[in-house]
């Protein structure tokens, strides 16, 4: 990564039929960076991508590419290529012709097209597929064709719109690694749109978390995970217990009636805050050693750990523990100072982070719906 800004969005807003989709987005994307726009459906991430690609023009604000304002440059003149959601391969062309499409439009010489298509097929591991009809390829293979078709034009910037959404889990994991490899080998800037936080964390240099048409937080995956800026980000990235608390003074946080040591400072004395505690950061201990006492109300076996729901004074916490505890058992919770993340109150306070209505099945269902969108 370096300081060369490749794409800059300045105060970009967009509304569809009077419904605001983007509210004054400011975003810098650096050269050779792998940036992920992450958020739930309807958060404006795809619209942001389409504005950069030139398929949607912003109502206000500027889009800059290498320092040039490109608001009025049509998609076909931009040095940007896109891997579309569900690929959008040309059904009337075979694999070779699909990949060669962009070069043919540019009237590149035939032997150079041949050479570069071969190069691309090698890059995406599709050697020998030239003559295959795209309708006869598996999802993963179509995905590779789509990537090759975009990359062969040697864009400075590749846009990827939920490219792995239609693949099954195993294939998705493989493709994540492969995309990362391709990005490293080609040195092309990637802007990647997804609603899958795991995908975002494992692939990106920079994650941009979006919600309700606004950017919530920009940072490295570790920053975003360890120092979420508000309740929305904390909840969306991984599992989080988010509690109401106060800061009696610097380095102290009062939650659930207990005053914890913490690493945060700079709040007004007595300021109301949101406190995030990750499920894996809480130690399950004997009742007598517990900072908080709770009753286990649910246990789910997850393979290498148990996910338990613990009722502490009516608030349901989610914890991860490697030791088995039985439902109905009373346990103590022990929390280290560095496990406590204090956030300023935001519009998202109180909306997330309570597991009283949590159910694995519901979570699973909502995932499926999102993929079908």
């Amino acid at each position, binding site marked *: 990564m370096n300081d060369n800004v490749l794409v800059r969005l300045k105060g970009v807003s967009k509304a569809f039929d009077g419904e605001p989709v983007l509210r004054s987005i400011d975003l810098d994307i650096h050269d050779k960076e792998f940036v992920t726009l992450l958020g739930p459906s309807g958060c404006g991430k795809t619209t942001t991508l389409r504005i950069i690609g*030139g398929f949607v023009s912003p109502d206000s604000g500027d889009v800059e590419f290498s320092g040039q304002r490109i608001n009025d440059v049509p*998609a076909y003149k931009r040095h940007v*290529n*896109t891997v*579309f959601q569900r690929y*959008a391969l*040309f059904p009337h062309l075979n694999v070779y012709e699909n990949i060669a499409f962009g070069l043919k*439009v540019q009237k590149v010489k035939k032997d150079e097209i041949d050479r570069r298509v071969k190069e691309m097929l090698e890059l995406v591991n599709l050697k020998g597929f030239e003559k295959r*009809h795209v309708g006869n390829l598996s999802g993963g293979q179509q995905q590779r064709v789509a990537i090759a078709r975009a990359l062969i034009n040697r864009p400075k910037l590749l846009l990827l719109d939920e490219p792995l959404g239609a693949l099954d889990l195993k294939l998705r994991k493989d493709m994540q690694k492969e995309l990362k490899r391709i990005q490293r080998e080609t040195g092309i800037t990637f802007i990647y749109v997804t609603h899958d936080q795991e995908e975002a964390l494992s692939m990106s240099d920079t994650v941009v978390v979006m919600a309700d048409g606004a950017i919530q937080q920009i940072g490295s995956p570790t920053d975003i995970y360890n120092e979420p800026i508000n309740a929305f980000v904390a909840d969306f990235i991984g599992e989080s217990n988010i509690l109401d608390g106060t800061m009696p003074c610097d380095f102290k946080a009062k939650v659930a009636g207990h005053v914890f040591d913490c690493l945060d400072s700079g709040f007004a004395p007595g300021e109301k805050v949101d406190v995030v505690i990750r499920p894996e950061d809480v130690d399950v201990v004997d009742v007598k050693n517990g900072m908080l006492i709770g009753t286990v109300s649910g246990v789910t076996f997850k393979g290498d750990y148990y996910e338990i729901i613990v009722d502490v004074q009516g608030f349901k916490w989610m914890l991860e523990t490697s030791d088995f505890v039985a439902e109905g058992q009373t346990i103590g919770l022990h929390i280290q100072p560095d496990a406590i993340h204090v956030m300023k109150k935001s519009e998202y306070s109180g909306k997330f982070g309570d597991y009283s209505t949590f159910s694995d099945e519901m979570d699973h269902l909502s995932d499926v719906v999102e993929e079908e969108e």
Partner: protein
Amino acid sequence: MNKTAKGPLSRLLAAPHILWSVLFILIPLAFVAFYAFTDNDLHFTLTHISEFFTPKYLGVFLRSVKLAAIATVICLVIGYPAAYFISRTSPNAQKVLVVLIMLPMWTNFIIRTYALSEVLEVINNAIVYLLSLLPESLVPIALDPKPDIVIYNETAVVVGMVYDFLPYMILPIYSVMSKLDYRLVEAAQDLGCNGFGVLRKVVLPLSIPGVLSGITMVFVPSISTFYISNQLGGIFLIGDIIDYYYYNNNHHFAAALSFVLMLILLAGLILMNRFGDDEKEGKR
């Protein structure tokens, strides 16, 4: 992927149509074939068939092909952009426009053609009147007796064919285009195609099936039409000849002409669809 109709129930569902086809298509067709190869005493003969290929009737046939081909090309030139335009409007506008395209089809085609002859007559008169206003030296044709410029000639026949059959060109093309995945258009733009490039490299090849069925649906009725040519053009096309012999008690010759025309059309259609399949699948 192919769902083939199997099982007793789905066969039963097709029964009414099969019965209908046998009664009103297959059996009559057999009669046409039988009549085509027999004389008045119902003895086998090839006289009628071979008469089709005499200069007299071959000439009429080729004239029919020519006019139908011109009409089909004009329909394509008008219909393709119209279909593209409709498919790019909003869903509500599309509904209205499609109804507007189909509206003329709600009137019987004989009445429509008759009305068109009146309209052409008026236009003809108007042109003649405008020409009469010009200095005589500039007018290339004699205005007395009144000339037939857009009526009672081949032009009028072609206009009639286009007028009557244009919707059959627009609708199948529109139907294919409205199903075209718009992301393919965006993908082509993304890869550097301007508007014309998108049309040539994506929209056009993907709309070939619609174009082929549009061509079929305009060309076939055009070549065998018998009313349009007579009413508007005052000329005889192959359909008129068949009509004439049928009503003048030479059923065998009428049947022979129909039979040969049918075979030629069939051959043409098979050829064209072969070409269409090549477009779609030949590149595997």
